[in-house]
């Protein structure tokens, strides 16, 4: 019976790591998703902890019937089988196993279980999805620390949870800043395109979707690099370790396919955070209204013809693609002299909060500008930051 105890203790270790950090995230309202292999995996570990090894083995077998290339499940199965013939010393008892590979699978187990036990509840939304534009059907939020991707649908501007998936991110973690640093960028991005299948090797699995790293804000901060994609995994595995990519966000092929059918190229936002903040719907509504109010004030002040009031909405450190704050002010004052009236309409506004330390929101909209001497429609992007406690525009440019 000794080996049972040992493997049980080991499961307890993993579960402990998981539950210890997640207890507070549990809400009495209950989680919103129970899909994917994590539910079964969690039961397997509970079985092991309770020393129901036969039941655990049955569950693992069932899991493998659904996910035949699930290496983590194979490892647990190996342990459960070996426990029948000799005492085990810990997690992953393969005698010739390279320790780093076992460690990677243990990390995957912990990541999957942690995410599973800390699932968001129905009343929680990611803070970043302040407003989706009407034609954005879905938004993606990635949590690198939890190795998790959350898919939200746009339900009349309010994000509704659809699914969540295990992901792999950069070998060196998150917060990409340099070419080749093997990190995953943090920020507000969107899916740009789809790499044609025939250009992909097996390594990328069922598809690849580049995102727009580095975006304007990244460039502003001097962040470099390129080629950050969402993509799949090679055929011989279901998943890769939590930290294994060169910066890309990697999903199981089936998960990527499920995602791919919902992506709108050039439109679907991908917000990557190292630790997603969740807001109650009330708090979310409040943050959203506050910013909406500021954007509306900016628009009104522009229409009013009072250029100084309009310029008050721009931050000290403001910059456009071609002008500093001072140049921008001078230019706007000059233009204003020729105007007798101005009308500005904003459509399709989206507001996505940047997951970084700074309070920053990426606002994108279609601008319909009319005046006595100019009519113009174009897409615009602004970065709003908090300056002196008020929302101000840090950057403005074409979207």
């Amino acid at each position, binding site marked *: 019976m000794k080996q049972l105890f040992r493997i049980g203790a080991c499961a307890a270790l993993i579960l402990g790591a998981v539950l210890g950090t997640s207890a507070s995230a549990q809400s009495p309202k209950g989680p919103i998703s129970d899909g994917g292999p994590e539910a079964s995996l969690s039961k397997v570990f509970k079985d092991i902890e309770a020393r129901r090894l036969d039941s655990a083995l049955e569950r693992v077998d069932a899991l493998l019937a659904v996910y035949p*290339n699930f*290496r*983590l*499940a*194979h*490892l647990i*199965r*190996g*342990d*459960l*089988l*070996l426990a*029948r*013939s*000799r005492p085990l010393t810990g997690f*992953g*008892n*393969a*005698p*010739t*196993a*390279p320790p780093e*590979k*076992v460690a990677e*699978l243990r990390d995957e187990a912990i990541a999957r279980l942690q995410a599973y036990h800390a699932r968001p509840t129905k009343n929680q939304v990611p803070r970043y999805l302040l407003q989706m534009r009407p034609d954005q059907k879905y938004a993606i939020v990635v949590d690198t620390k939890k190795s998790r991707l959350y898919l939200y649908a746009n339900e009349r501007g309010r994000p509704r949870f659809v699914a969540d998936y295990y992901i792999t991110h950069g070998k060196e973690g998150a917060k990409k800043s340099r070419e080749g640093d093997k990190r995953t960028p943090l920020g507000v991005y969107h899916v740009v395109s789809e790499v044609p299948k025939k250009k992909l090797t097996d390594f990328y699995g069922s598809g690849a979707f580049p995102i727009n790293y580095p975006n304007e804000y990244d460039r502003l901060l001097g962040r470099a690099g390129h080629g950050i994609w969402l993509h799949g995994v090679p055929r*011989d*595995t279901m998943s890769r370790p939590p930290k294994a990519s060169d910066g890309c966000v990697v999903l199981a092929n089936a998960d990527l396919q499920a995602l791919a059918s919902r992506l709108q190229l050039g439109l679907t936002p991908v917000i990557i955070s190292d630790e997603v903040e969740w807001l109650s719907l009330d708090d979310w509504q409040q943050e959203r209204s506050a910013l909406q109010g500021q954007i509306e004030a900016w628009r009104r002040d522009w229409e009013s013809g009072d250029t100084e009031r309009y310029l008050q909405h721009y931050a000290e450190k403001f910059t456009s693609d071609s002008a500093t704050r001072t140049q921008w002010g001078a230019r706007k004052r000059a233009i204003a002299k020729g105007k007798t009236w101005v009308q500005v309409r904003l459509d399709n506004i989206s507001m996505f909060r940047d997951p970084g330390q700074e309070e920053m929101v990426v606002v994108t909209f279609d601008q319909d500008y009319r005046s006595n001497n100019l009519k113009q429609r174009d897409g615009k992007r602004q970065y709003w930051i908090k300056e002196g406690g008020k929302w101000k525009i840090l950057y403005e440019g074409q979207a």
Partner: protein
Amino acid sequence: MTFRPFRLSLNALLAALLVASALPAAAEPTLAEVQASMKQGQLPAALEKVDQILAVKPKDAPARFTKGIILTEMNRQNDAIALYQKLSEDYPELPEPYNNLAVIYASQRQYEKAKAALEMAIRTHPAYATAHENLGDVYAKLASQAYDKALQLDSANTQAQTKLAVIRDLMGSNSRVPRTAPPSKPVLVAAAPAAAPAAAAKAPAKTPETPAAAKPAPATPVVAKAEPEKLPAKPAAEKAAPVPEKKAEPKPDDKAQAEARKLVENWAAAWSRKDVKAYLNYYARDFETPGGVPRKTWESDRQLRIAKPGPIRVEVDDLNVRVSGDEAKVRFRQSYTSANLKSATTKTLVLVKRDGRWLIQQERVGG
């Protein structure tokens, strides 16, 4: 991974059957004669004889069982499987056919099937130690396969080798008695015909009167556990025991033999010490590498293997040395234990004398 395949103690029923069948031995050959043929490696003759018995008594369990062993040794695995399956249908209470079936499945790396067969053996005889041991091995194999899938290890090659060794082990254990028959098993008689005489010779030999008997097989304790249930069969066994053949005949201990024996022991000791240099030194320059790979490749492969972390224990038993001039053939039982592998195989080393020193020129698994 050792399967102790033919630790086949037959229970009272079988033994009785055998005795019954042995007495009126009129025209058709006796099982003892079949065993004798097997022991001499005359498998087709053994098969013919056992078929003669079966022509008269088609349902005879010991004869059918023996035929299964012969077929297995003749590499007619599918025929052996079919035979054991049918035997199990007719005698579902016998654990041995299930066990041997499992051994064949395991040799084909069909571990799930092997597992199922062993579970049947245990269902009929919960205390059947051999089946428990084999099942433990099968679990370990299944675990190893699972680990391979989990960690993308490429142990497939070494596994295939292990498997082969098992088959030969199985043959060795039946064609050559000395070692494989566990000391505590006089019951073997009826079961494994080839082993029977051995067992007979062996049973009293628990004390190491022949070098062969010196090292009890690792499985022995487990086997002993199963004993009570087989006890009733003992008298029968004794009756069948006095098969004329004497195995483990005393060797004329001439100098060359002693030297050759010493070399093998030293070779095993160097291996156990993980002294690669000394180990490789026991091989002649014209050593026939497995698969004919270049010597360098073979050496570095050996080096890698032996240098792996964890202790290695290599024990040799039952040395059988035959010297002719400057050549010697040493056949022995090799028990190998390392961190990830346990095997017991029959090995043959062909030694050549070079500059007054015995060196290994060929090494192969099996007798």
